[in-house]
């Protein structure tokens, strides 16, 4: 196994000075080159897990290993794409993309050539010298993906990268991300609350339970040999994940709204394709 997460425990102290357990005994193995998504209700600790893998945060106990090496701090082989693109507004697109390469002490010319290559891959060759504010949300997120890819990471950690984008942009970026993944064979660890997104993109969906965050079930997404999955299969998988999540959604809602609330079962809202689960 490539990325191994073992017995991770993590708790926070909230505003009322109470200890809140966020992650409770997480065990997960991710194969090299695979695309794994994590879905779960908001506040279930999925982003926290990503930060732990990124090395931005420390677990209370447990171990995370990449390629056998213990994760203790951020490393260039594990790059994060955040929900907000997080581009530096004082740097141009090119300078943003070469930021990590300069830190790697790569010669300027080489770094530039590499950045231009990656920017071409995300179709932004025209905007190399623009500043981030001149770009749309989707373009910003593309730059942010380019900035990550240029590092040639072993693992790409994505923290709800498309959730702030509109539907059309998201669909385009889904396709592009899959292309990139097939081309670069990078391992992708993808956090989302959008069930459809998880099913469409990944090979494996890890469903999280909440309060405390635990892994409820790991669901493989069946794919055909040619990489195209029939809609019926996608739908079935989606249904399955939703039914697993239902209990968790109810738990959250009851806590927030009160005991009399019941999330309707057997009712699946299909009107808006990208909307699945975003009300969680």
């Amino acid at each position, binding site marked *: 196994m490539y990325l191994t997460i073992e017995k991770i425990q993590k708790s926070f102290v909230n505003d009322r000075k109470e200890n809140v357990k966020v992650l409770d005994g997480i065990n997960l193995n991710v194969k090299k080159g695979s695309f794994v998504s994590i879905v779960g209700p908001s506040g279930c600790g999925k982003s926290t897990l990503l930060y732990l893998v990124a090395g*931005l945060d420390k677990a209370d106990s447990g171990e995370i290993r990449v390629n056998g090496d213990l994760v203790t701090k951020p490393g260039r082989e594990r790059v994060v794409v955040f929900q907000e693109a*997080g581009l530096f507004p*004082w740097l141009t697109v090119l300078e943003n993309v070469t930021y990590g390469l300069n830190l790697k002490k790569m010669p300027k010319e080489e770094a530039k050539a590499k950045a231009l290559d990656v920017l071409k891959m995300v179709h932004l060759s025209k905007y190399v010298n623009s*500043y981030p504010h001149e770009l749309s949300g989707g373009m910003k997120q593309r730059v942010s993906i380019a900035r990550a890819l240029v590092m040639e990471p072993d693992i790409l950690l994505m923290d709800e990268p498309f959730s702030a984008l509109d539907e059309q942009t998201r669909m385009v970026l889904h396709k592009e991300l899959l292309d990139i993944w097939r081309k670069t064979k990078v391992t992708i660890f993808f956090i989302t609350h959008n069930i459809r997104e998880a099913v469409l993109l990944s090979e494996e969906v890890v469903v999280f339970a909440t309060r405390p965050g635990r892994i409820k079930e790991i669901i493989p997404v069946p794919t055909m040999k040619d990489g195209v999955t029939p809609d019926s299969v996608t739908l079935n998988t989606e249904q399955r994940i939703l039914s697993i999540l239902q209990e968790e959604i109810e738990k959250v809602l009851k806590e927030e709204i009160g005991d009399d609330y019941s999330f309707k079962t057997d009712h699946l809202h299909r009107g808006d394709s990208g909307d699945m689960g975003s009300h969680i």
Partner: protein
Amino acid sequence: METLFNGLMSGQITLAIGKSMGRILLGFTIAIVVGLILGYFIWRYKLVEDTLGFVVTALQSIPSIVWFPLAIIWFGLNDFSILFIVTIGATWTMTVNATSGFKNVPQLYQRVAKVYGSSGFHFLRTVILPASVPQIISGLRIAWAFSWRALMAGELLGGGGGLGQLLEMGRSLGQMDLVISVMIIIAIIGTIVDNVVFSRLERNVEIKWGIRKRV
């Protein structure tokens, strides 16, 4: 008007402007450097924030001319005393602004930088400083206004050449035209620096960052 013109021509006023500008540039530069360094420590270390941070806030409320008697005792009635109050007038404001600038750097930028392996001085240079530039510029602007006032007061009392001294000279000679001329010069320089230097700096940054649209 004639006095103003003649003064500029004969070099009496020009010389004084040169002297004053030289002083303020030196004092202001020192204040910026000291302010940024103090700001860094207050931002970085909790202990410093609790101790020095409080003192700085208190010191900020002391008008810098109040330091003058003390400066005269320490350094004598000379250039150095004037430089001292010019510097001290700008330092505290600069410190306060730098601190809040550093503190307000979005967590996201810091995380991004860390993910790419930035740390230590590189982190400070490539993330913390540029991200707080807008706030630092507004700090510069206020600090400039403070040190400009301190400079005039200092020169008026301390002498050693400069516009303030010229003002005092005009008073003692009963030359009201000179006094008015110098006042006009002071106003002009103050406005030019604020409008041309700082406003432009601020606008450029805002346009580059996309906070303000190009007009």
